[in-house]
């Protein structure tokens, strides 16, 4: 067991990271719900069935202690189970003669388990968007087995009540609730004549006049606000602000810190990034074989330039260190990250209304979003790595004879991001 203080701090950090991810996931899922709904056929007003309620992983953190599973964990386990079941199903389907229609095995698979247990609902990987095809197969499968007496399924629904039910069926993006009523006449997607799909008729939409008016007024106000900014910076207000800040500083009686803790941390972060970039560039330069003397000269210039920058960074670092030695700063409490001391409000100086970001293809958008997420996750990982190092390395080195399990776990966490493990063998002398 880890000591109490160490446990508390580690668990708190990890829980913080988990919470941040959960919140982001929640936002994403909300957006996904809205987007999916927009891309399906739009229901005529009045027959909107309520959305399936969001999963239990809302803001309330699990009140149970850290190591007992929460509802969020159960949900994740469910997803894992479903993914595994699908894998099994796919494998089974492949091992049987490939040409056979999948529906029978699907049906039998479905009815082998009672519909009450959510964990054994028909396996399909969560997060698949264009799953209308599998929905259709599923629904048809149910219909064929449960209501054979009704004959062929109807593809036109006369009554609004059926349409509403169908709406619910089509909306059951998550397995479970929609499949409870097996006697409902299910259909793949409503084929009602007035169905509106974005794909076919999206370009015919038009924003209402009231909205357009409000939107143009909105942009006018933003323009007005941003035009007021430059005046402020040259105005008497700027001098008034500086005077006020200076008065605050002198009234406190202290000479005042040149830099606050946040600024120092930000600057150190920048210097670290600089160091990384310089190192990368230097390696590139050294590994590139120059083909002619012109290139070699260019390489020389680059290396000299890099050296000069490195010298400046080092100098700056020494300055910071000297400044810190003179005045000890308080602890920095901001959680993560401390890059922005105040919430990042956006805008680059003059304009505060959101500017445009142009992308040219789905691929580009995906790359952009994936990179953003990757950088944020790496950030988190770096922070956790530092915390783990600070807590675990002293622990292992302070113990006379650390348990092998501990060593193995610490190595895995610190050196492999928790993904790989080393093997420890007793070195028995060969007989």
């Amino acid at each position, binding site marked *: *067991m*880890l000591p109490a203080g160490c446990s508390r701090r580690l668990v708190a950090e990890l829980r*913080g990271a988990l*919470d*941040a*991810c959960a919140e*982001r996931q929640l936002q*994403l899922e909300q*957006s996904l719900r*809205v*987007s999916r709904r*927009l891309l399906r056929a739009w229901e005529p007003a009045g027959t*909107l069935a309520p959305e399936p309620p969001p999963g239990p992983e809302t803001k309330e953190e699990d009140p149970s202690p850290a190591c007992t599973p929460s509802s969020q964990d159960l949900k*994740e386990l469910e*997803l894992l189970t479903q993914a595994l079941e699908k894998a099994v199903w796919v494998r089974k389907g492949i091992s049987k003669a490939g040409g056979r229609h999948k529906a029978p095995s699907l049906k039998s698979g479905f009815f082998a388990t009672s519909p009450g247990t959510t964990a054994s609902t028909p396996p399909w990987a969560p997060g698949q968007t264009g799953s209308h095809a599998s929905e259709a197969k599923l629904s048809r499968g149910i219909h064929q087995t449960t209501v054979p007496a009704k004959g062929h399924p109807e593809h036109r629904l006369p009554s609004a009540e059926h349409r509403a039910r169908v709406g619910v069926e089509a909306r059951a993006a998550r397995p479970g609730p929609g499949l409870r009523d097996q006697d409902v006449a299910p259909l793949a997607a409503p084929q009602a004549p007035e169905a509106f799909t974005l794909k076919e008729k999206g370009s015919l939409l038009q924003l*209402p006049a009231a*909205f357009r008016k409000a939107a143009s007024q909105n942009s006018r106000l933003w323009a007005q606000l941003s035009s007021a900014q430059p005046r402020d910076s040259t*105005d008497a207000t700027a001098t008034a*602000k500086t005077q006020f800040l200076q008065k*605050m*500083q002198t009234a406190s009686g202290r000479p005042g810190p040149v830099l*606050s*803790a*946040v600024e120092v941390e930000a600057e150190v972060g*920048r210097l670290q990034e600089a160091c990384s970039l310089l190192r*990368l560039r230097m390696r590139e330069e050294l590994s590139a074989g120059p083909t002619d003397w012109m290139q070699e000269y*260019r390489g020389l210039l*680059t290396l000299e330039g*890099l050296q000069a920058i490195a010298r400046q960074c080092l100098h700056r670092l020494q300055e910071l260190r000297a400044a810190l030695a003179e005045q000890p700063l*308080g602890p920095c*409490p*901001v959680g993560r990250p401390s890059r*922005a001391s*105040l919430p*990042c*409000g*956006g805008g680059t100086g003059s304009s505060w209304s*959101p500017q445009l*970001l*142009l992308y040219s293809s*789905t691929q*580009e*958008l995906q*790359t952009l*979003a994936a990179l*953003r997420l990757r*950088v944020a996750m790496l*950030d988190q990982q770096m922070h956790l790595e530092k915390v783990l*190092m600070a807590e675990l*390395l002293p622990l292992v080195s302070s113990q006379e004879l650390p348990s092998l399990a501990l*060593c193995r*776990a*610490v*190595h895995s*966490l*610190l050196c492999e991001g*928790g993904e790989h493990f080393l093997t*420890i063998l*007793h*070195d028995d002398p060969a007989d």
Partner: protein
Amino acid sequence: MGRRRRLVDPAAKAGAGALPEVIAALSRSLPAGPSPEIFRRAKFDRPEAAPALWRLLFRLLSPLSADGASPTLAQEAQASLVKSALRSQGYPRLALAQLPEDGSRGSRELLLALSWLLARAPLPERLLAQAHVQLGDEMPVCECEALASPGPWALHVEAEGPVDIRCVQWLMGRLRFRWRCLTASQQEQCTLLSKIHLYTRGCHSDRSLGHLSVAETEMLRDPEGGQQVGGQGRGPQWSTARQALQEAVEQELAALRWAWEQDRGPARPHGPHRLVRLGDEAPGGQYLRAAEVIQALKSQEACLEAALRRLQGQCRQELARLAGALPGLIWILPPRR
């Protein structure tokens, strides 16, 4: 028109006449904004104004802009966090640190702290930019708050007692799983977004945008219920060639510096930008291209990965040293990818 101008430019009018309007505007626009009466009482250091100002400062200083992310933190906890946040930002006055955290007094000092924050950074504008109605599909181009952990600012259930290292491993594994889920969901969202943009081409009244955003489309569906520098060529003569080379290298190194010097030099783009799929014509005015942002992010990714590997290498060395002290064991490291 006259009144609006006065509100936008209150500082031009010296004197107390404009002050009540400014206070009223401030009170309306700040999140958890106290009433103008509270400001007045704080000026006279009335004790009853203190709790509201503590709450305001907490709300302004907590890193998450989220809607009431930490409503349940007690007064003392909030006050303590506000104190240390201000101290780490360099708040000069000691009097704040000496205030009692139960909110029983100190409203004047808190008012000073608020003024200090307002004087240092354009706080109201930033908050406004954060809280504005999002008509478009917005994506931040910086990662200032992408996966910000609430840290000490949120209420955490304390662990019951000491835990095993395996619990830490398990939590780490959960975190990795959540990262994977996030990536998958994010990819799906991009695909859907791209489709919606594509299908609604030509609808927007604003020609420079071209298509609708999810918020706007949703509103229609349910009205009831939003460079980089290049190199240079070479001249025929050696001196011109050399000069050109020198300039090229300088520009390259300047771009390198730009990559990490965020606050100096050209401002790095921050904050949310409205996503627009490129149509036939480029929109007027200022805009960012996704390719530029991707480049910046790629270099950041490379930096972070390198830094992480370095840290892991340090750990490996340290642990190898400690393992050396344990005789009679063979350590087989996992194969390098």
